[in-house]
């Protein structure tokens, strides 16, 4: 069985700024991988490289065995066309810190949009899928609300439903609860837990150490553009081997 995500020696530079400095990461199918680390360590950049929102500068990124963004023809690398990259992305769902719902569409329309425009489903089929996904995140009764009429937690659950409507093989979460009021964090984490329980492969950047302990199969600790340490929650969070990891958890716990 191929791994769902395989990063091999991934580097990312923004101009002269070296943000990822050789990241190797394997995420198996059905695995929940939680990425922790201080601000600016490159966590967002890493998961944005997985779905090609950022182009990697060196190394190789594979998703479900497929080389992302590039193809090799007779020993030379070629960039994929926009269309091919869009197809690769459509199998990877992403949830953002600031939700990024489409404000001019209702919750239902938000969820229907990609199935209609990308999967080219007809309206009835797209609506059926959208209603299923809204049901799954517990928001059937909010289908006709615009994002501005929803609480932050509800908006983030719609955003999760929107990503799920593409029936992705992999879900990426970039600090999905960081923009939420504390009392709304729980409802979003609950949806993510049930998603994990259903066997979805997930990579989650978060500061919720409790969520990592409870749900993660693999915890990755990043600092300064490299993976410092990884392992089970018990190993990395409770018995870190590296000094940098210990410092970090001493501060946040």
């Amino acid at each position, binding site marked *: 069985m191929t791994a769902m995500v395989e990063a091999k020696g991934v580097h990312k530079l923004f101009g002269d700024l070296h943000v990822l400095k050789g990241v190797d990461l394997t995420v198996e199918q059905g695995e929940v991988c939680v990425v922790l680390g201080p601000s600016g360590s490159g966590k967002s950049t890493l998961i944005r490289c997985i779905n090609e*929102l950022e182009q990697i500068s060196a190394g190789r990124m594979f998703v479900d065995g497929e080389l992302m963004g590039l193809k090799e023809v007779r020993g030379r690398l070629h960039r994929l066309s926009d269309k091919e990259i869009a197809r690769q992305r459509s199998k990877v769902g992403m949830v953002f810190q*600031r939700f990024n719902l489409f*404000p001019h569409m209702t919750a239902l329309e938000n969820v229907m949009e990609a199935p209609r425009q*990308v999967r080219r489903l007809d309206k009835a089929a797209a609506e059926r899928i959208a209603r299923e996904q809204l049901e799954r995140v517990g928001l059937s009764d909010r289908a006709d609300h615009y994002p*501005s009429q929803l609480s932050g937690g509800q908006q983030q659950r719609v955003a999760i439903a929107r990503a799920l409507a593409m029936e992705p093989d992999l879900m990426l979460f970039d600090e999905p609860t960081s923009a939420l009021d504390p009392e709304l964090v729980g409802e979003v984490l609950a949806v993510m837990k049930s998603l994990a329980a259903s066997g979805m492969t997930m990579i989650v950047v978060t500061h919720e150490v409790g969520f990592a302990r409870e749900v993660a199969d693999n915890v990755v600790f990043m600092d300064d553009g490299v993976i410092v340490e990884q392992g089970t929650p018990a190993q990395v969070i409770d018995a870190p081997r590296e000094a940098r990891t210990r410092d970090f958890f001493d501060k946040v716990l």
Partner: protein
Amino acid sequence: MPQPTPELIHARPVPRPSLWIWAGIVVVLVAMLVNGLLTNPNYHWDVVAEFLFDPRVVSALGWTLLLTVGAMLLGITLAITTAIMRMGTNPILRGVSWVYIWFFRGTPIYTQLVFWGLLPVLYPKLSLGIPFGPEWFVFDTQDVINAGVAAVLGLGLNEGAYLSEIVRSGLNSVDKGQWEASTALGMKRSTTLRRIVIPQAMRVIVPPTGNETISMLKTTSLVLAVPFTLELTFVTNAIGNRNFLPIPLLIVAAIYYLVITSILMVGQHFLEAYYGRGFDTEGTVRTKPVKGMSKRQRAILASGTVHPDPNAEVTP
């Protein structure tokens, strides 16, 4: 235990004598103005009434509307195309659109219209073919570009250059997160533009475009430079000069411009309401509203998808 009803406050409001003083002043001024307008024989209201529905005037109004609509449609099409070209990654297209805006904004519209009118003289034949190579189709320029077409081309090309900047600032006002979200869902650039970015940019684009449309309505009177002589200003001037009564015919034209502008303003109101959908719920304001902002502006800020742009709010 029943609560005793508290004594309710029935205080007199702070006296505002200035309100009444201003009301008085305005009423007197308006009365003087109306009186002056109605009783001054120089305005010839009977002539105004006579020519208001004159068939020549009504048909001229039709031409003015046609020119306005034609020029705006051409302008908007060009504006969206060139704005997208300027935001794109293709340096050739970026250059083409930059030069287009530079030239058509930088030269007087009157001169442009004269040149469009002179086109059949400058280039008597238009041909389709390979430069320096064979020609497949040859037209008489006169047949293809008559005065009406020249007028619409002249006005539309000029307008497109101005609108292009408005469209570009509208597209730029849409949050980067919207691009990222739709890109991450696997939408292509063109789909993202059409479905996600342009509909949101419209909120920023519509008000100044309404402004431009109203301005275009009156700019159409410049097409006499082509020369195109069927529109409202030219026709009313001609009638007025022939009757030696220019003033009442100027009034006729002004009345029509005012009426059409009013209709356009109503239309703009509904367009703004349409593109504001999803943005008009108060109470979830995440960005702190600034005092004195319109409801629409506050709603846009509340959505968090556009950045406040002081230049974008142009009210006619």
